[in-house]
């Protein structure tokens, strides 16, 4: 069979289909490009920054090259010291000595200033022997461990940042050990992040499920009006809602005054539940409360839309077969809402993991979650390697949870409506 112009119909059909596919692809191309540019590329860059740090190899090129052959058993030879001196002189001119110092300082605190001082002193020296000159500039260069750190940092792929995000570090012999106790913080923060997220998810479920049930079973007109009470806060900016909690919870704020005027403060003081006025602001309680409020619609809405699809005839059938209302609800209704519950809880949990502004505004110093630390490492400490590594840890934790969830419940069973 041939088309009017003589080409076989089969080919003609394929051409037409190809055009359709291309058109469809063009339609999704803007979104696809947007996701690649704004989502995939930043994640890849972040993952790269967590492992890749070329500061030392770029700024001490000859030294790192020579150190590759060094066995680490005795102090490196004169040629390494000479190369080091030459590299530092070049770095001084290019104003990159501080970068070298900053990177080495992560592993040996105080090395930053020592690198700067050494570079300054070496600038005035023209000829060797360099071993004596470098050691005279600062005795730390006599230490084999210093050179082991330079050698280790000299490889552009480094496990340092990821290890430090897990409270670990490489010791003098290259073995992995825990960081000193005063710096051991990130595992605790990760645990805290997971804990707060789980707590908020559970609370939103307990509060949201009955509301969703009521909205789904009430007559449409009433339900629509009540729905506004769910959606209105949902449409309000997160920052505004967080600030509102600040006003409510602060010392001498609305809640504290209410407790005072109603005498609850006085009674609690007499009964010994608390002493003095309540301190609600800048506490874990405030963090969980504000986050639960903000996340409630995210848990509620998927549950609601699944409940809307459940036909009331199932419950009627169960009751007509002799089940008590509670039994029918538990064995017939609740299992059918599970896809919505799963979707809502997963959504809330994963969103909670990345919370940043709410814990920072209403929580205390010890309520800061991992996203807050990513910000601190990036903006306050200027340590992008660490912030990337923390992002990597958070991403991995999220993916593991997603995997476990998929195995337990099955992602195909999840329903947003």
């Amino acid at each position, binding site marked *: 069979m041939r088309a009017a112009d003589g080409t076989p119909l089969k080919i003609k059909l394929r051409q037409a289909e190809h055009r359709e596919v291309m058109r469809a692809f063009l339609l999704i191309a803007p979104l696809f490009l947007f996701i690649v540019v704004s989502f995939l590329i930043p994640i890849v860059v972040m993952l790269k920054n967590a492992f890749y740090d070329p500061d030392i190899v770029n700024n001490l090129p000859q030294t790192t090259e020579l150190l590759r052959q060094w066995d680490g058993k005795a102090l490196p030879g004169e040629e390494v010291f000479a190369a080091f001196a030459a590299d530092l002189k070049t770095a001084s001119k290019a*104003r990159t000595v*501080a970068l070298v110092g900053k990177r080495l300082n992560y592993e040996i605190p105080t090395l930053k200033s020592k690198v700067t001082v050494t570079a300054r002193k070496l600038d005035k020296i023209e000829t060797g022997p360099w071993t004596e000159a470098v050691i005279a500039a600062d005795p730390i260069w006599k230490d084999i461990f210093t050179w082991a750190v330079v050698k280790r940092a000299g490889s552009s792929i480094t496990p340092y940042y990821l290890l430090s995000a897990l409270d670990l570090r490489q010791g003098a012999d290259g073995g992995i050990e825990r960081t000193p106790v*005063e710096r051991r913080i990130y595992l605790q923060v990760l645990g805290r992040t997971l804990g707060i997220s789980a707590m908020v998810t559970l609370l939103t479920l307990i509060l949201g499920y009955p509301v969703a049930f009521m909205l789904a079973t009430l007559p449409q007109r009433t339900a629509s009006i009540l729905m506004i009470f769910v959606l209105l806060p949902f449409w309000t900016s997160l920052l505004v809602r967080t600030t509102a909690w600040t006003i409510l919870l602060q010392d001498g704020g609305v809640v504290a005054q209410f407790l005072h005027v109603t005498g609850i403060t006085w009674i609690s003081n007499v009964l010994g539940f608390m002493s003095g006025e309540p301190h609600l602001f800048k506490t874990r309680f405030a963090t969980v409360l504000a986050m639960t409020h903000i996340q409630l619609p995210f848990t509620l809405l998927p549950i609601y839309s699944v409940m809307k699809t459940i036909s009331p005839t199932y419950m009627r059938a169960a009751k007509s077969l002799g089940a008590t209302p509670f039994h029918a609800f538990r064995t017939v209704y609740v299992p059918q809402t599970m896809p919505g519950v799963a979707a809502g809880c997963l959504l809330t949990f994963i969103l909670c993991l990345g919370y940043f502004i709410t814990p920072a505004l209403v929580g205390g*110093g*010890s309520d800061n979650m991992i996203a807050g630390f990513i910000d601190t490492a990036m*903006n306050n400490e200027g340590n992008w390697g660490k912030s990337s590594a923390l992002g990597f840890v958070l991403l991995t934790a999220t993916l593991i949870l997603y995997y476990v969830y998929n195995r337990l419940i099955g992602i195909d069973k999840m329903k947003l409506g």
Partner: protein
Amino acid sequence: MKKLSILFTAALLAGTAFAGSARAGDELTVTSWGGAYSESQRKAYYEPYMAAGNKITEAEYNGEVAKIKAMVEANAITWDVIDVDTATALQGCAEGALETIDWAKLGLDRAKFIGAELMECAVPTIVYGTVYGYDTSKLAEGPTTINDFFDLAKFPGKRGIQKNPTVNLEWALIADGVDAKDVYTTLSTPEGVDRAFKKLDTIKSEIVFWEAGAQAPQLLADGQVVMTSAWNGRLQGAIDNDKKPFKIVWDHQGLDWDWWAITKGTPKIEEAYRFVAFASSVGPQAEQTKFIAYGPANKDAIPGIAPATLPNLPTAPDNLKTAFNVDPQFWADHGDELKERFNAWLAK
């Protein structure tokens, strides 16, 4: 045809958008710390400068050196002139994020500026004190020394401190009995650092952090804290402008500078120099003290300060009795590890 005209309109719109951003490019972007301090700079520097036909766009930050570095590294400079603190000036200079200042080009006498010799890449603009303050309507018999700040038995209640180890560690050691002149030698040893953190531990349960300078007087005004550390000008601003019953405790104030720095590689370097020269000149420097109680870095501006303002400046003789200078070299050398440890400490 219709499609073509839509495309044409879109192209036209895109064209105007580009032209718009190019016009905006003539303006110099000056970044500072916000709140009362930016307000004083607006009145003393930006407005007169703009009245002379120049354009300034203001931006705000909390001293994040990483943002400046990111701009320079990505070669996407949006801040041309930045008001930086000492640590940022030193770090930005050492890491190549700030221009080296050419004083001849500025047309100013470097010797006339307090502390100018300390810095390659910045021009001093003000001298400020980190002090602490309290609300006299809540504490009639108020604290008077830095020891009182750490004394929870005598003055119970929350305390605000900056989310930054600078001055906090110094105060902790002074309150623990270290002489002010030995603070930096003590802090240079691991035992000294441990000692400072141990002292901070004693008030940790009552600590509230502030980040932006305007937050400190706000914490006090809201009654969130009974006392808070702050930059003296911010507290004075709340006393003078908002009629707050605050009192400043000058004991062991930490003296430090703010500086004008020019971002490395800015295409508007000529305008940047012109602005810094204007803002550092005698008239505007004296004018700024009308709006905020910081000492002008230009010594020639001192005679132009109103007599009523003088006792409120950190450089007033009465306020200097126990003051110490925040050591720029110490913080350049140890800032990194102490910041990291401080952040870990406050999160525990």
